[in-house]
């Protein structure tokens, strides 16, 4: 009998996920669950992210000094850990976006060679 073994997350998602998380924080401090929901709805449910993987990403960003966190009350009067940008994080987001655009452009060029050569 063959059974599906536990599948580790794809490495390629990691950097991208960090960028997406930073992006969602542009509207102000947010807690983990809300960040997950935002990414999900904004991507029209097409990105299938195991919500669990958000937390390592958040901690990673915090360790890098790109976000800060504190425990606050939510509107529904629950205690939750809120994350917000740091100035360093803002700069990082800009860089990541640049890199992403370049990557998309580069890959696009390879996938559609004729168009780029004119």
């Amino acid at each position, binding site marked *: *009998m063959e*059974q599906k*073994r*536990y599948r580790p997350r794809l490495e390629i998602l990691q950097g991208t996920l960090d960028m997406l998380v930073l992006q969602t924080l542009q509207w102000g401090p947010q*807690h*983990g*669950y809300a960040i*997950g929901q935002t990414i999900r709805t904004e991507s029209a449910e097409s990105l299938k992210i*195991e*919500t*669990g*993987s958000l*937390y*390592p990403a*958040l*901690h*990673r960003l915090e*360790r890098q000094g790109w976000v800060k966190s504190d425990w606050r009350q939510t509107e*529904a009067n*629950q*205690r*939750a*850990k809120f994350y917000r940008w740091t100035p360093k994080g803002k700069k990082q987001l800009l860089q990541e976006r640049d890199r992403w655009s370049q990557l998309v452009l580069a890959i696009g060029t390879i996938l559609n060679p004729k168009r780029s050569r004119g």
Partner: protein
Amino acid sequence: MNPLSWLFRRRAIDRDLDAEIRTHFRMAIRERIESGEDPESARLAAINEFGNVLQTKEEARAVWRGGAVAMVADVWQDVRFGTRMLIKNPGFSLVVIAVLTLGIAGNAAIFSLFKGLALKPLPGVRESSSIAVMLSRTSSGRHTGMSHPDYRYMKEHDQAFADLAGSIMIFASVGLGSDATRSVAELVTGDYFQTLGVGAQLGRTLQQSDDVAQGQHPVAVIGDGLWRRAYGGDPNVLGKTVYINGQPLTIVGVADPEFRGTVVSMVVDVFVPIMMQPVVFPPGRLDQRNAMMLMTAGHLNPGVTITEAAAQTRVLAAQLDASEPIPNFASRATVIPIWQSPYGAQTYWLPAIGLLGGMGLLILLVVCANVANLVLVRGISRRGELAVRLALGASRRRLLRLLFVENLVLAIPGALGGVALASFILPLIGSGAASSAPTQVYLNTSVDGYVLVFALGLSCACALVFGFVPALKTSRVELITLMNDISPRMAARGMMRSALVVSQVAVSLVLLIGAGLVLRSYSAARHADGGFNSQNVTALAIDLQTSGYDETSGLELINRFLDAAQAEPAFESAALALNVPLSLVDNSSRAVTIEGYAPRADEDLSFLYNVVGPDYFRTLKIPLLTGREFTRSDDKNATPVVIVNETLARRMWQTPENAIGKRLKTATGDWRSIVGVARDLKYSRLSEEPRPFVYYPLLQNYVSGLTIHARSIGDSASALRRVRDHVQKLNPSIPITRSMMLSEQTRVALSVYELAAGALTMFGVMTIVLAAIGIYGLVAYTVQQSTQEIGIRMAIGANRMDVLWDFLRRGAVLAGIGAVIGLVLAAAASGAIRSLLYGVGARDAIAFGGGTLVVISIAIVASMLPAWRASRTDPLSALRHQ
């Protein structure tokens, strides 16, 4: 966050993370309930959406640690867990630790010996292992020292050496009259202490200013041992007089307590300026280029290799020889590392140590195999646990690390226990060798950092071998097979366990055959006579110079002693000699000129010699092939005579008979006629090849240090007492510097066999025990796992004998395969130890046959018990069991 604060804040972070994830679930479930789902499906959906909680936590936690800290913390956790697991299984843990302790102990002990000979040969000396020794090699391959003029020349011109000191090791009597004791002394150059980086614990060391004019520096530095022994560690010892060979010298310092001179294995008691050689150890030979008596050693300049240094030294020596040739002596100066130096024990012991080291590693293989087997069996019983860990998201790496750490938890006590055991057995090995040696033997075998690091390294390497092989096997299994199929039968019949047992049997057979060969050499060597008969012969040494005798009075005393000895009814015969045979070290040699013989350009005509008195050959029962031995009338007034051995006679004059009447002379003496040809002896070691040898007559060639050989009727104690009485009667102030029987003295030559035989037997027994445990374990395990099968077989008619045979056969087949492999390996390897063997062939049938027999019988005995138990199986209860 820095690593340390992470360690402290780890719990806080864990709590924080837990709270965060709990909040997440609460929100997710609540949102789903609000949108109309029922609570239970909301909960499941939230969990499903989240993914693996444990793994998420693990990853988030991992973010907060640096690489090394993470390792340390995780490993610490593993260590705690591993320790708990092992405490829960005390039987398993203790057996593994005990087996490891044995294996490590043997290896650590051998390593300590190796360290004492090669790594740190000279305690108290700066970088002693990197010291290079300069010496000459004669065309016949014999090593000699450097002469004093050559040493001076080399020191001045040799650019390869950063420093170069010289010393002459002598046996000297320390003290006066009957209080004198025999000690090892070194006559040293002025830069000796500076070169070695040795200081004085009291007073000063010897300096350049002590190395100026011959006979003008009556000072000495004494060693720590002599200081404590003879002076009770008196702090006011400076300025006191110590008599060395009867010469008064003023003590100017006590050497560093760790320092024991530059002869590996010897403890040097006194250091005297080399300029005192003509006085302390006459005749004066410091200006003679053919007196090659200095051991020269120093540190090479940075970046200079031994080979380059040797090349440079050869060039210089050739220049020197061209401008000032030495007659009848051809040699080439060269440079060798200290571990190859012929001065001291290293060349004698290192081959044996090499052999023991090889054996030690084999033992370690058996130990690893045994432990691997245990771990493997345990691994099988732990499969369930490991499967659960994998299922909960532990990575394979993490799992392997856990298993590895568990093995380390076993390995480290094993290493420490091994070192402790080694430091316990080392003195036993050492004292065995020391008690048989004529002088204080010292090897730097103390258990120190080197040994500890070695043992820990070895043990961890074992942990790798015995931990990872089975761990890989365990962790490679598919998760699901682990969880569902716990049938152990597959594992019990596993190739790996069988292979381990086979290799154990093979290795133990190799060791047993090695032990057998060396044991047989030992017993052959014990019964070997070396060409002379040492039974009931004394070897009592006296020193005449110390009690004020010169040549004339000394010869007169010798004659009086010979008269007394002849009149003593308890002596069959008695004789005097300079050196004892089978002395372990080559005593001095002399260059000779042979009448009518023109030596080839590079021919070595310097021969080992002894100075012996009348009746020497009769007393030691050394046969003369032709001619006569020295008599009382071969004195100063008679024609100078000499006796040569068979090898020399045949080399120069083809037959012993031809040699009679031929003449030879030393550099300083008259022509001497050959009056006798004696059978060859083993002059230094039992394993030596026949060598040319010359005997000079004592009555024509006075020496002051003498050994009295008296062949006595009656027991050895009374023989020694009688000889002592005779010496006392002649002059009570004559010091007896050594008092033992010749057979005790020659036992030294056996010390290396004794050590090797003892260690190998120990190892052989150890491995065979381990192999027996291995076979027993395997068969017992197979029996246990096959209970059901046995039950079925017996239920359908197999009788007890069938079952017994079946399991016995499994053990015997494995032992047989192992024995064949072992025989092949032993046959291939035994040639390598040929130099250690004596009187037994490298393919000795008794050693090979006996070893095989022992291994096979022990294998059968080891399988017998579990096989018998299998045959006692009650079919009914066996079948009911599952």
